[in-house]
């Protein structure tokens, strides 16, 4: 994306939502959707732009959440610095996992597996370790004040998460326009060719994982401030790994607005499924899974890229596409 204007318009438009909508239910819907969008924006840096599909982004969400919660509850740290430390924890986890996985040369399925396994190890450890509250979880004390980063009004929480999402949007926009971004997409498209052009592929991928981890961790930190509770299933469970991946893929992986579009669509579909079935568990996720398969199969650019996909199909259908031998 060349200009910053669309991003400014989207942020301004979203910022106006609490002025128009006063229903707590609707605001809650937006808060949760934006939180998932934030987690998805983290995944998008590594998976969408870098082509490294993580199946364990819970590593970062959970680490951010636990660090924020534990620092406040066990060490009496103020919520603001605790929030910052949670984000740093995500970056550190990204460095560690990225360093291990990418230096070992893991790609594709292997990378997906190893991230999944890391998340699972952390989940099991968190479910028994005393510091995380083991099976009981950790409860953050209710203290509705700006100093404790807790707000009485939903609107305030909404603006907080929107601010975080906006920062992530701007970071993504800056990456798209930078040398780092060009190298990252080059690694996604063809790692060997990128190396021939002087790209240190391992360093670029680790860099992407650090940024990715920090952004997704921020979503975890926000979760703790919003719900004031975290346990091993919330923090490191498969649900967040799947939603962090689902939103950018559905909205359009490797695009600035992909995760945001995906999160709103996914959450809206989920709500609709719950309304139809009367809160019976499972159907919303069935819908997510079906949408994922359909998007991968029919709209490889996601919903955000549907127009381009259709235009290409129409052109190809009319014989406008060049018939090419793919390998020269």
């Amino acid at each position, binding site marked *: 994306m060349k200009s910053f204007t669309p991003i400014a318009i989207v942020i301004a438009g979203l910022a106006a939502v609490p002025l128009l909508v006063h229903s707590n239910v609707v605001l809650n819907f937006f808060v949760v959707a934006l939180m998932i969008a934030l987690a998805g924006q983290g995944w998008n840096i590594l998976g969408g732009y870098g082509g490294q599909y993580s199946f364990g982004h819970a590593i970062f969400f959970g680490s951010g959440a636990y660090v924020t919660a534990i620092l406040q509850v066990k060490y009496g740290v103020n919520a603001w610095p605790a929030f910052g430390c949670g984000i740093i924890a995500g970056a550190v986890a990204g460095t560690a996992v990225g360093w291990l996985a990418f230096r070992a040369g893991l790609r*594709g399925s292997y990378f*997906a597996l190893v991230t999944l396994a890391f998340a699972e190890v952390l989940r099991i450890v968190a479910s028994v370790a005393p510091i995380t509250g083991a099976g009981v979880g950790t409860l953050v004390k209710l203290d509705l004040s700006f100093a404790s980063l807790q707000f009485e009004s939903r609107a305030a929480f909404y603006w907080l998460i929107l601010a975080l999402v906006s920062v992530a949007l701007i970071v993504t926009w800056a990456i798209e326009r930078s040398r780092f971004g060009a190298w990252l997409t080059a690694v996604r498209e063809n790692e060997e060719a990128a190396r021939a052009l002087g790209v240190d592929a391992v360093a670029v991928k680790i860099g992407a994982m650090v940024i990715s981890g920090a952004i997704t961790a921020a979503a975890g930190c926000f979760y703790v401030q919003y719900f004031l509770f975290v346990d091993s299933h919330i923090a490191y469970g498969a649900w967040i790994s799947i939603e962090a991946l689902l939103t950018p893929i559905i909205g359009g992986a490797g695009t600035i607005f992909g995760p945001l579009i995906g999160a709103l669509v996914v959450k809206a579909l989920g709500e609709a499924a719950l309304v139809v079935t009367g809160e019976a568990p499972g159907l919303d996720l069935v819908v997510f899974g079906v949408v994922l398969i359909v998007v991968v199969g029919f709209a490889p650019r996601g919903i955000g890229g549907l127009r381009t996909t259709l235009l290409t199909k129409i052109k190809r259908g009319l014989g406008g596409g060049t018939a090419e031998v793919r390998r020269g």
Partner: protein
Amino acid sequence: MLSPVILIPALLNGLLTGAVYALVALGLTLIYGVLHIINFAHGALLTAAMFAAYFAFTVLGIDPYLAVFIISPLFFAIGYALQRFVIGPASHGEDRNMLLVTLGLSVVIENALLFGFRADTRTIDVPYAFSTIDLGFTYLAVPRLVGFVAVFVVALALWLIMSLTDIGRAIRAVAKEKFGAQLAGIDVAHVYAVTFGLGTACVAIAACLLMPTYYVNPSAGNAFVLVAFTIVVLGGMGSVPGAVLGGLVIGVVESLSSLFLGDSLGQVGIFLIFIAVLLVRPQGLFGAKA
């Protein structure tokens, strides 16, 4: 603590559990060996097959050991259809897409089961569930012994299919050199689907063997699938003997580490092995090359 009275039964139990793991892993490694993808829907298919075995028993009154002969062909067909009509077409031949599509399938299957049958944990009651064989120094559970024998029968059957039948030869050809096989007139999409079907049938056999002593709920399969991933990686992706051996090893490791560390940390031991193998030797302990 290290007295043989505790250690030897733990070891034997580990071997017996490992056999069921190996069965699950067999299906996974077969699919990987030919399609070169990790089937993330494997655990969900295991759960679905366990539900099938559960209802075969409770509704139709068919013993799980007999139901094997109905459920595994049924799951062969399901696996064939999934690969042929969903995974294959939706992924356009790209590995990344296959990952996502099988992940999507697992989400769909698991949650459709949750939606249909709720989160309740169900068990069946067969007369032989607790029968044992007395070895003098310890007892062996009969159902688990059956599982142990079955893994070798299945591995042998797979080996026979691979080496003696036309489709087996076609599968091996595709696994080795996809484009060459295609040029030789082999229908690759069909071979992929048959392989996926065989892998799914393996999982169905494992499900029927598990049902007499295990429980089923919509996420029951997950407990096995990460372990199966570990086995497949340990044994070398795509290697059938590796999967059998890897399964037995992991069964013993799990049994011994739960003995020393407790149940949940015993699982951590498995995952740490898994991560270590992936990072250090992704071709597996028994695999020849990456």
